């Protein structure tokens, strides 16, 4: 897609405004760096935004670091620790992080005027900062209650950056550098979010053996304890006492997520012999189309996470005008105004009650869906994200409260 394709979604005036802003960045080279180009929300966001930045005339590139599985096991443990989960963190893990970080430093070429580093895996790259470049650290996880030893370890690197970016105000920490708030976004034309025909939706259901004879409750997420798939099953069972329905748990495996097998075993054990619980491991090649179809076919979308960064799956569901029931954690309350564009919950029982409300009141469900879609159009599409990124890059060169460009 090119930027003018978005005119029919957000209006010509918004696209015109983006072009005005982009003219101020024509001379800057933006280098984005993360840990994987496959799987997970970060890769999804960068794969969209880099081409659009280029289409706006900005020289933006995307590089990934390479490291061994042991290193990614350590960073996964750090990821869980940052989310506040109890994990064993040993000195040898910190040592491994530093040793591999040095190798990554050695192997990674830094050439951008602005170097945009995502999440902890490449964080040590800031040691290549010079007077000629600017470094931004982008945090995609919920760090509102981190395991402090890990946070303090990373903070030493974070505070070397020119600024940092978080997805929610709840994630603000005490840092000596500016912290900006930029919410993630979705692309309305992507395979995951474009309009689908009824035939296409039905083909997805048929592929996974799901019949449309009962209401469908769906959660789409990585298979991860922090997404509370067991809690979702429990909520489904409470709903099932009153409404004959079915549950879909759908997700895939990200390249840097080694603990998935354990989670999957627990889910299958809790599912037992219930034929109305569908646990789907979507192949990466079919991920986007299948997820799109499953979300559009669903009567209610659930996101009962214990911790979240932003929960981009919520944005996807809202864009499809699906009624959403979600935990009030992480960035989710930024997307859902309770009872206006979705329903927020705090417990399994609360989730079950909200799901029943939506299934029993289709007109209310449709209204929630419409409001949710409009909220996403204004605040969580690629165009808004592009604007925020461009302003972020400009902020490195103008730190006044009001900048006249």
């Amino acid at each position, binding site marked *: 897609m090119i930027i003018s394709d978005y005119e029919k979604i957000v209006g010509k005036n918004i696209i015109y405004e983006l072009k005005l802003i982009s003219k101020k960045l024509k001379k800057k080279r933006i280098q984005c760096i993360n840990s994987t180009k496959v799987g997970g929300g970060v890769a999804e966001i960068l794969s969209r935004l880099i081409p659009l930045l280029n289409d706006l005339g900005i020289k933006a590139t995307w590089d990934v670091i390479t490291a061994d599985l042991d290193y990614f096991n350590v960073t996964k443990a750090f990821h869980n620790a940052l989310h506040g989960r109890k994990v064993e963190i040993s000195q040898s893990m910190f040592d491994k992080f530093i040793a591999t970080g040095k190798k990554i430093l050695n192997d990674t070429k830094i050439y951008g005027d602005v170097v945009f580093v995502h999440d902890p895996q490449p964080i040590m790259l800031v040691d290549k900062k010079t007077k000629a470049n600017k470094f931004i650290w982008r945090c995609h996880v919920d760090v509102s209650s981190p395991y402090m030893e890990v946070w303090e370890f990373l903070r030493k690197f974070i505070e070397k950056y020119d600024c940092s970016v978080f997805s929610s105000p709840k994630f603000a920490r005490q840092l000596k550098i500016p912290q900006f708030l930029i919410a993630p976004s979705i692309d309305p034309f992507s395979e995951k979010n474009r309009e689908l025909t009824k035939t296409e939706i039905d083909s997805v259901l048929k592929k996974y053996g799901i019949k449309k004879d009962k209401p469908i409750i769906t959660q789409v997420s990585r298979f991860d304890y922090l997404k509370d798939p067991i809690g979702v099953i429990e909520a489904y069972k409470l709903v099932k006492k009153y409404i004959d329905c079915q549950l879909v748990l759908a997700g895939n495996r990200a390249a840097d997520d080694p603990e998935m097998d354990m989670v999957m075993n627990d889910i299958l054990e809790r599912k037992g012999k219930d034929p109305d619980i569908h646990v789907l491991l979507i192949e990466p090649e079919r991920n986007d189309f299948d997820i799109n179809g499953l979300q559009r076919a669903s009567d209610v979308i659930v996101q009962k996470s214990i911790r979240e960064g932003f929960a981009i799956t919520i944005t996807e569901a809202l864009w499809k005008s699906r009624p959403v029931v979600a935990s009030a954690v992480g960035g989710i309350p930024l997307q859902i105004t309770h009872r206006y564009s979705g329903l927020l919950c705090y417990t399994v029982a609360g989730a079950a009650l909200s799901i029943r409300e939506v299934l029993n009141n289709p007109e209310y469900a449709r209204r929630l869906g419409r409001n949710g879609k409009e909220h996403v159009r204004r605040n969580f599409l690629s165009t808004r994200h592009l604007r925020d990124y461009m302003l972020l890059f400009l902020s490195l060169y103008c730190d006044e409260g009001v900048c006249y*460009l």
Partner: protein
Amino acid sequence: MNWWTKRAKNPFQFHTSVHLRELTGRKARNVHELVENIKEVSGSVIYYHTHVFLQKHQYLSPEPPNDFAYWVSQVLGEYKLAEELTSIDICEFSTIRELRERIIRVIEKFLFENKEPLRYAPKGREFEFIKARSYVIPTGFKARNLKEFSMILDKITIHSIYFHVFEARLRLEKGINDFSFWVDTSLGTPELAELFSSFDPYSFTMEGLRRKLINIVSGWCAKNAKR
């Protein structure tokens, strides 16, 4: 006189203003902490929670015109205080400083009179103070007369309308907006200027405000066509 095409002394140059949000790390769990922080934060924080908040939410239905009122109502359930905060007539104020002082007075009055224990926000629903960093950009659109002015109003972003209606009032410190100032000084139409500045822009949705402004122009031109 054809007011549609009467040439202005100076063209109106449309600008737009877009914002980047900066986290301050400050949070409030109850009304007392809310007001203590309001006293200390910079003006750009007050500006964000009374103006930028508006842009993000006021597209479908007019919501409370400030973030403080929204939080006090939706999270703390202090509806009377929320209503008092909502009812602050932001149009009265030509500076952020004055607006801040009014908000503080309203909340302190509530704290003085309130005999009930303070309500606390649940964990994770604290009020988070955010600062706005603003970037002002010329759009390249210029109106030499009311016809062009109306056509451009129809197609610019709400950010631009916002800049010229809401931010201008604070920038000019005169209690009037850019449109009012222009038609008065460059077109010599004080009556039209009065129409632009005499309604409450905070009580409209963003698109409703756009239509209101366009209708003011067309209505006035039609009424004065034979003048």
